[in-house]
């Protein structure tokens, strides 16, 4: 057995495809991005090396700062709206006596659907003339709006489908976490006279901390990387009001052909995500000490 499992040739053969694919299509591209971000380059001919000039320009670029602001706002919405709603749903569904499975299955449906479909669908829901939302509001006597077409409402309207789509996902992760908590603990608390809210607040949520860390990390990083839905819904418009860094990056590269500058935005997004992951880890570790 030992001998078979130390077969060097087999080990190399088993690992080679993964190593090769990941090196060529993941690692090398990231390094290339980092290098491009130091160039002034339009994609034709050779770029000129300009050091960190692209990054310096980014800090002064109002359009970029606006896109970062939008993505941070979205991250805040995920944290303050999406996750609490998911958590409440998870706790309720985990405690409901009948229909647990049906609720779980239904809430989860939007998660598996392509962002192109979700985006197109919500574009029609928000449509100013024939949209579902306006049709509903007119029943209540509220005048309709062109939700995605005007600056004042576009950002909020572009966030809603994103928040809506992944509530079921976070709910399910939390639900699985709640179900793995031993029922004895809840039973003991109930005997001691704790009510359901107390049990949720004092027992379930503290025990769920590792799971919450996963959810917070996923939803915040997902928010900073958001691309698909915004691309389909508004493409960043009107007047950049829904633009996020990844959209700005995409346009800088493929519409304005500023390869160097666009790569600097890409690297910014990676670094932003890395820092956030690190900070969250510290944050949750500190909490565990108490």
């Amino acid at each position, binding site marked *: 057995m030992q001998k078979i499992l130390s077969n060097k040739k087999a080990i190399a053969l*088993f690992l080679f495809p993964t190593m090769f694919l990941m090196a060529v299509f993941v690692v090398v591209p990231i390094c290339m991005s980092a290098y491009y971000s130091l160039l002034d380059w339009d994609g034709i001919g050779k770029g000129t090396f300009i050091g960190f000039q692209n990054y310096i320009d980014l800090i002064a670029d109002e359009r970029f700062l606006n896109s970062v602001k939008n993505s941070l706002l979205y991250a805040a919405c995920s944290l303050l709206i999406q996750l609490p709603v998911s958590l409440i749903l998870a706790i309720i569904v985990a405690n409901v006596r009948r229909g647990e499975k049906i609720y779980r299955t239904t809430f989860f449906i939007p998660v598996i659907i392509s962002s192109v479909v979700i985006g197109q669908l919500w574009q029609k*829901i928000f449509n100013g003339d024939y949209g579902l939302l306006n049709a509903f509001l007119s029943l209540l006597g509220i005048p309709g709006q062109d939700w995605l077409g005007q600056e004042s409402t576009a950002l909020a309207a572009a966030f809603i489908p994103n928040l809506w789509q992944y509530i079921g996902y976070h709910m399910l992760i939390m639900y699985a976490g709640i179900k793995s908590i031993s029922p004895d603990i809840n039973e003991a608390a109930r005997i001691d006279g704790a009510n359901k809210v107390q049990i949720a607040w004092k027992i379930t949520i503290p025990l769920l901390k590792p799971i919450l860390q*996963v959810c917070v990390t996923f939803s915040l990083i997902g928010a900073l990387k958001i691309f698909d839905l915004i691309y389909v819904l508004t493409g960043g418009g009107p007047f950049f009001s829904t633009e996020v860094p990844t959209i700005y990056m995409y346009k800088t590269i493929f519409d304005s052909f500023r390869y160097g500058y666009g790569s600097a935005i890409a690297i910014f997004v990676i670094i932003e995500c890395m820092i956030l992951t690190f900070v969250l880890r510290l944050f949750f570790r500190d909490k565990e000490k108490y």
Partner: protein
Amino acid sequence: MNKKITGRAKSCVTHVFLIIFAFIQVYPLFWLFEFSLKDNSEIFGGNIAGLPKHWRFGNYVTAFFKANVIKYFLNSVLVTGITIAVTLIVSAMSAYAISRMIWKGRETTLKIILMGMMVPIHAALLPLFIILSKTHLLNSYASLIIPYIAFGLPMAIYLFTSFMESLPKEMEEAAAIDGCGIYRMFMLIVFPLIRPAVATVSIFTFISSWNELMFAVTFINKAEFKTLTVGIMSMVGAYTTKWGEIGAGLMIATIPTVIMYLLLSEQVQKSLVAGAVKG
């Protein structure tokens, strides 16, 4: 007695709350189904939320054949199918080498591979575009399949290694005593044993590559190779105001995923949670 009644009232309130929420999650999709069967005169004539007066299945025929959705659909099936198959084989082999075989540095290797899960695909977009254009692979199935596999591997390896670590070694030991070599052991003993993880990895890979948009939009602009996500985007461009046909296209892109989900809902939920939390 009183307590019983308030208890029942409370559970009633909970169910009403949950049902309202379920409605919010599902109604938009039902509405999509409705308008995919209407024509513009009906939608613009005021029947926005109601059931269609005439069920115009013709919209589906138009979307399928005139708007070429059938081609996009088949492309998606092909790209996703190959991606899943190759990802499964490559990641299972590597996961086996990492979790069972004996060599130095396996833990470090695993850690490095798993770091790949953190990499946002946006950061690789431009370099991949350049690599693919230099190798003349833009506008081919390979331009999607290869990056999908490369970016899907870390998650697949993560799922396989955690499954293999929980697997008893007796079967393999018995096979070794019977004189079975490593390659036969992997194919005939290990692969069948890890079938539950194969399902998880397949579902995960299916959902991410079937729905992928950014690479598909960037690397493909010939109708011949467009997958559903890009195809639908261009169909929307061509049919801007024809809601019915667009709706039908969106439905066609969604139905396979939803059917798969309804058939395997437990397994799908488990798989996607396993991707987030070890288990």
